[in-house]
Structures are given as C-alpha cells and as structure tokens.
C-alpha cells in the first residue's frame, strides 16, 4: 500500500518521514555512494524543502515502511529537481505541466522488504503503480525518473521499465540514469500485468491538508 504525504504535512507523519530519510542515507549515501548530504543520519536535499509529494510504501501486514520515492512537478525553478543535479553528462531539463519527476526512489533496507528479491520487486512496483495512478488522476502525460544500475536489473526482470534518456557514470559506485515512462491507462495495465497487482495501491483516504485539522 502506498501512502501519499505532502512535504508540508510531514509533521503529521513523523514515523514515515524518519524511516524514509534514514533509509535514503543507507541507500544513496552508503550503498550507492552518491554525493548527498547527510545530517544526523538523515539524507535530505533542497528538493525536500520545496514541499514535494512523498510516496511511502507500507507493508500490508505489519505497516512497516518498505520503500519511498519523491515526486515533484518539473515546472519549478531550474535550481531544483533533476535538472539541478550535476550528475548527468547531458543536462536534463525536461519541463512540462504534465510531466513530474520522481527521485530518491528506493527499497528500504530491512527484513521484509529487501530480504527477498520478490519482496523488493513488489515494493518497486507499488511505488511505480502509485505514481501512475496519481499521474492519471492529475492529467500527467509522463513521469521522469532517476534510477541506478540495480533498478535496471529489477525492471528487466519485471519486463517493464522507463525508457532511458541519459546516463551518468560520475555519480557514485554505480551508473545512474534518467528515464521517462508514459502515464496512460495502457501503462497502468502493463505494470499491473507485470507485477501481478491488480488493484489500486494508493491508500484510500483524504490528503491531510484537505482533512479538517482541529
């Protein structure tokens, strides 16, 4: 199941946010060796200050946080988002009101999520399905996503994945990529067929900002 958390509502979700920032440290700083900033065990960058939309994968049984990703429009300033990173050889500055970008996509280290390949693949699919579900709801045409070499293997195994736009070998221990995929009912169907997940993955509840706050 995927919970959507808007950056400004972080305070209502301390457990999810804490789990995410710590997992990002483990994955992007320690495992992948990316040039990211870690403070008190939490990896954050300036995108996190811009009120992004976080996708938090939760285990259906235990409620543990098993993965996370971050979504932002691509219409904001050039100083944010993928275009801000100097990771890629070719400047990536795709911008459109109907294209969002997905960054810090990761499966969290932990017994249930990364213990088995199948479980990790499932988390990846849930995150991508959620992005597609909300992309369709929001009238998006494509999603641009940053991923690493390990994800390439996950996508290949699953027979579904983004189309590569650019590659960087300067990032860390492994190459990193920017890819795009189409937000269409067909893509959703393909993802569902590849993952075996036939239902909506986004948690059915109102976004916090739209709930009454007493």
């Amino acid at each position, binding site marked *: 199941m995927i919970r959507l958390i*808007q950056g*400004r*509502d972080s305070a209502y979700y301390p457990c999810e946010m804490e789990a995410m920032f710590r997992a990002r440290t483990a994955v992007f700083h320690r495992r992948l060796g990316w040039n990211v900033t870690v403070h008190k065990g939490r990896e954050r960058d300036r995108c996190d200050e811009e*009120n*992004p*939309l976080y996708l938090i994968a939760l285990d259906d049984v235990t409620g543990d946080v098993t993965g996370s990703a971050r*979504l*932002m*429009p*691509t*219409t*904001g*300033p*050039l100083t944010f988002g993928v275009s801000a990173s100097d990771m890629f050889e*070719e*400047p990536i*500055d*795709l*911008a*459109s*009101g*109907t*294209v969002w970008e997905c960054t810090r996509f990761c499966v969290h280290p932990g017994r249930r999520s990364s213990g088995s390949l199948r479980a990790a693949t499932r988390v990846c699919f849930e995150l991508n399905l959620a992005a597609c579900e*909300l992309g*369709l*709801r*929001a*009238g*998006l*045409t*494509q999603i*641009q996503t940053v991923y690493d070499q390990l994800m390439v293997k996950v996508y290949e195994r699953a027979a579904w994945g983004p*189309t*590569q*736009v650019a590659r960087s070998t300067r990032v860390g221990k492994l190459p990193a990529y920017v890819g*795009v*995929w*189409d937000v269409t009912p067909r893509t959703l169907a393909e993802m569902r067929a590849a993952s075996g997940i036939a239902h909506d993955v986004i948690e059915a509840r*109102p*976004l916090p*900002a*739209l*709930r*009454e706050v007493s």
Partner: protein
Amino acid sequence: MGLFDDSFELSVSEVESVHSMDELRPFVSRLLGRYGLRHAAYLAVALPDQIDPHPVLVCTYPAQWTQRYIDQDYLAIDPVISAAATNLLPFDWSELSHRGIRVKQMFDEAQEFGIGRHGLSFPVRGPLGDHALFTVTSDASTSEWQKLKSSYMRDMQLIAHFVHGKVLEFERGDSAPIKPLSAREREVLGWAARGLNNDQIAFKLNISERVVRAYFESARHKLNCVNRSHVLARAISLRLVGPATA
C-alpha cells in the same frame, strides 16, 4: 477529444489572439462553452520577486461575487486557498473540509452567486518560484462531473499552465522562454519543422519515440504553446529552428 488535439487548429488561432491581460478573460470565457464548464478563475498566489507583488486575478465570476469575497475577507478562511498552498496535485472542492460557520457561509453564498456546484483547482508551480491556482467549476450532476473531470484533466493542466505562462509573459513584458530550450529539444524541433514525425525523428536521432515525445512536450511547455503546429510556428518565428540551424 481534448482541446489540445492537433486536429483542433482553431484553438491555435484563439490562443494566438491572447496578446494582453485584457484578452485573457475572453479566452478563458470561450473555453467554458467548449468544456461544458460554468466558470473558470486564475489567481496568481505569488509572482516572481522582480515583479511588483500583487495578486493577479483573471476570472469569469460575476463582479458582485468577487466584491463580496473581498468585503467578507474570504481569502483568509477559504480552504481552496490554503489547500493550494500545500498541495501539488489538483483537488476537487468536495475533498475540502467545509466545516466552520464562515466557510459554510462562503460556499453557500458562492452557490447563490451561481459559481457552480462543483469546483476543481489546479496548483501551478512556475520557473521563478511563482505559484498560481487555476480553478474550473461546473453545474453538471455529480456523476457527470466525475466523467468530465477524468476526460478533461490533462487539458485543464495544460490550460492552467498556459494561462500562467501568459500572465508571467505580460507581467514581465517579455515573451522569451524563461527556461531555455536544450540542444536536444531544439534538435527535435528542427527535424519536426522539416516535416518528420516522431517515429522518424526517433530513428534519425537513434533514440526512443517516447523520448522524442518528452523533448517535444518540454519544448511545447517552455515556449508556452498548445500543440505541435503551434510550437513549431513559434520556434520558427523565434529563430530557434530554421534553415540556418538545420
């Protein structure tokens, strides 16, 4: 079919007629009929620093309602406004909390002024840290509204960004793209201007057709155009592509 289908050439001439702030309201007004909407409203919540900070409102609401809204200081309690500040995703007014006497009063009065039974708002984030909100309303039945929403979501996103782009252009007094086109985007436009379709361009550049579309869509957005022929015409008139750059 959406407004931004390439077969709707008429839409390009309508779009080309928007040369000033005064022409924005009639343009938005013409969209209402095409989409079966009741009203539309654009509000700039924050414009770039270099522009005199004042809210910009372009709407089809009756003047009596906008005056009432100001007199009652509804801006301070309007949940649509606070939701716009926090959310990146479009939101339906029915998702908002209508609790509170003044909030209920505001929505009731909006109904009396014929604002519309349903509302859908699109937050817009711009290249200079600017924020805006584009709202459309409808008097359709609830089930009809659900259908309308899903079929028009993409078009409305495009319109929301197009109107915002125009407001920025008029406020800055500059129609040049704020985010420059990348070399790849210009390359794709260049081949398109010579009559190649996306598959042919993909073959020419040895990239996927999906990636060609991504570059095209980005160029379209940066040049604030509505469809393929529009962006090509604009690119040529700005001398971004043409015989010299072939």
